[in-house]
């Protein structure tokens, strides 16, 4: 249902926007190829963006049909590369960056939060609580800029842009190539982790604080079980629930942060691609990336729902 809505949004937005995307596109083709678009091209552009004599309903059906057959069209800014190719180039980089940073940030945040919530009011809690509040309020793209300035330009510890060393042959089985990916990805990844863990920390701390005083935790303590065991097996396990569902719900937001960070570090992922497409009015690329992101968010939500049921038997439907 959400996916259908996203499809429809994608279809409707260009048709209800002021200005004429179709005309922009035709102008672009003319600029890029140096000659007036052929009648064939004009017709296909008109079909893609509306403005043709065809009514909205049949345009919509045609659009759905195209998507069903994975026809996403050609990029405008890099005409005539198919959109799918551009995205296939960008996707692995984003997956790498999002995957590692999200997981690491989540683990760090949840672990620290569990520890903080275990002894609220401790010195650790008193120092960390205000610091993380502030860190959480920092815009990711701005921190990326500062990190880039400090660690890449001033100190020269990290490369300034890109995702791998252009002097090393582009081979996935080459150790030097893999090492350069690590080196180039380190700064964007560290920035994202630094920003990312604070949110998890807070939800975890607050749920933990309430869990710690529950009867079963008190009982476990009274039984004389080792502290770490009570912390992880009893309290943390139950306090984990909001963070698990939060992880899925946050995927959309995480993607937003990653998109901007990629732009700052000129990291060749989806975010950078989407940004360039937006600047260049490359509508087919924009629409396809948006659909991809929507799909990701939906799948993440689905997974979260199933994990939730696994962790919390109370949500299980006992027919």
């Amino acid at each position: 249902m959400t996916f259908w809505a996203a499809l429809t949004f994608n279809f409707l937005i260009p048709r209800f926007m002021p200005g004429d995307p179709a005309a922009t596109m035709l102008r672009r083709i003319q600029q890029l190829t140096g000659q007036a678009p052929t009648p064939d091209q004009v017709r296909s552009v008109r079909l893609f963006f509306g403005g043709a004599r065809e009514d909205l309903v049949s345009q919509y059906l045609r659009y759905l049909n195209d998507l069903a057959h994975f026809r996403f069209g050609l990029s405008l800014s890099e005409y005539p590369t198919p959109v799918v190719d551009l995205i296939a180039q960008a996707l692995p980089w984003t997956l790498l960056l999002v995957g590692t940073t999200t997981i690491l940030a989540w683990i760090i945040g949840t672990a620290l939060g569990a520890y903080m919530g275990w002894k609220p009011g401790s010195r650790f809690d008193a120092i960390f609580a205000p610091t993380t509040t502030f860190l959480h309020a920092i815009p990711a793209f701005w921190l990326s800029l500062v990190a880039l300035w400090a660690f890449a330009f001033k100190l020269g510890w990290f490369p300034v842009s890109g995702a791998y060393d252009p002097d090393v042959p582009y081979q996935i089985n080459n150790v030097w190539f893999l090492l350069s990916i690590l080196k180039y990805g380190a700064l964007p990844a560290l920035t994202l982790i630094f920003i990312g863990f604070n949110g998890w920390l807070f939800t975890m701390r607050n749920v933990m604080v309430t869990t710690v005083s529950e009867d079963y935790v008190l009982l476990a303590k009274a039984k004389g079980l080792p502290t770490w065991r009570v912390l992880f097996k009893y309290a943390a396990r139950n306090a984990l629930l909001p963070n698990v569902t939060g992880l899925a719900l946050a995927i959309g937001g995480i993607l937003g942060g990653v998109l901007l960070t990629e732009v700052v570090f000129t990291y060749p992922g989806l975010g950078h691609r989407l940004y360039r497409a937006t600047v260049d009015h490359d509508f087919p690329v924009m629409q396809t990336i948006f659909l991809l992101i929507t799909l990701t968010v939906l799948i993440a939500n689905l997974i979260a729902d199933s994990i939730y049921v696994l962790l919390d038997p109370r949500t299980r439907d006992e027919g």
Partner: protein
Amino acid sequence: MLSGFLRNSKVRIGLGVFAAFLLLALLGPWFVSSVLDTTPRAIDYDALGQPPSADHLLGTTLPGSDVLAQVIVGARGSVFVGITSAVLATVLAALVGVPSGFLGGKLDHALTAFTNLFLTLPSFALTLIIAGYVQGASWWVIALIIAAFEWPGGARTLRSQTMSLRGRDFTVAMRMLGESKTRLVFAEVMPHMTGIVSAMFLRACVAGVFAEAALSFLGIGTTGSVSWGTIISEAQGQSAILNGLWWWFVPPGLCIALLGTATALVNFGIDEISNPRLSAANHKLMKRFRRAAKTAEAGVA
């Protein structure tokens, strides 16, 4: 409730900082033109890209504008978008959430589905795309776009709150007395939600400032006007990093972070009041109490 609210130190600090920024947004342009005697776009040809000094407290940009003047005037653009989008988002959330929770039935189903739909759509990507089509929009349009994706979370909270209020004794009694539903909602239910609504509003406000900064940074905000986002964006666009002009892009980002911290503090304060177990201060008090009890026991023995 209100006095307890203001007694919480987190709330007080947060509100104070927030008010300071509000004042800056209101009086900033006047202050810059009459006290600093400059404009954010004025060019000092003797100081192009200079670090902070007595003449320019926060230094100058590469084209020679005063960074302090830009940051002060930029507060208005950022805060305007933040507040406008927050007002719109809060009103939308109330319009969808309250009737949905109060009336229930088919209307509730439809509105909940609608809310969930907006909740799952990846808002930032969509905002980016829409803003990409509407190039060079005014602050109003930017605020409208941001608000369109800010309301669903609030609508959900308000719906569940309304549902719980609907079942309380006083609303049931009023309904039995034949009070009209509209009056019930506006005169009886809404006032009980001012706490939640104001927390929601603050959060939406900062989210709006964030979103505006992000959009401007990508060059999709308005052109010509100054906001914290456009300052950072210009700094990035004119290679402030390459030239080491940190004083250009650091202050506006710090302002955003400070505003965000202020709101977070207010929200934490509210959480602590509604759930006293969260308060670190209370835990300290409990600890001291227990220790005192122990020493007293030891003394008796």
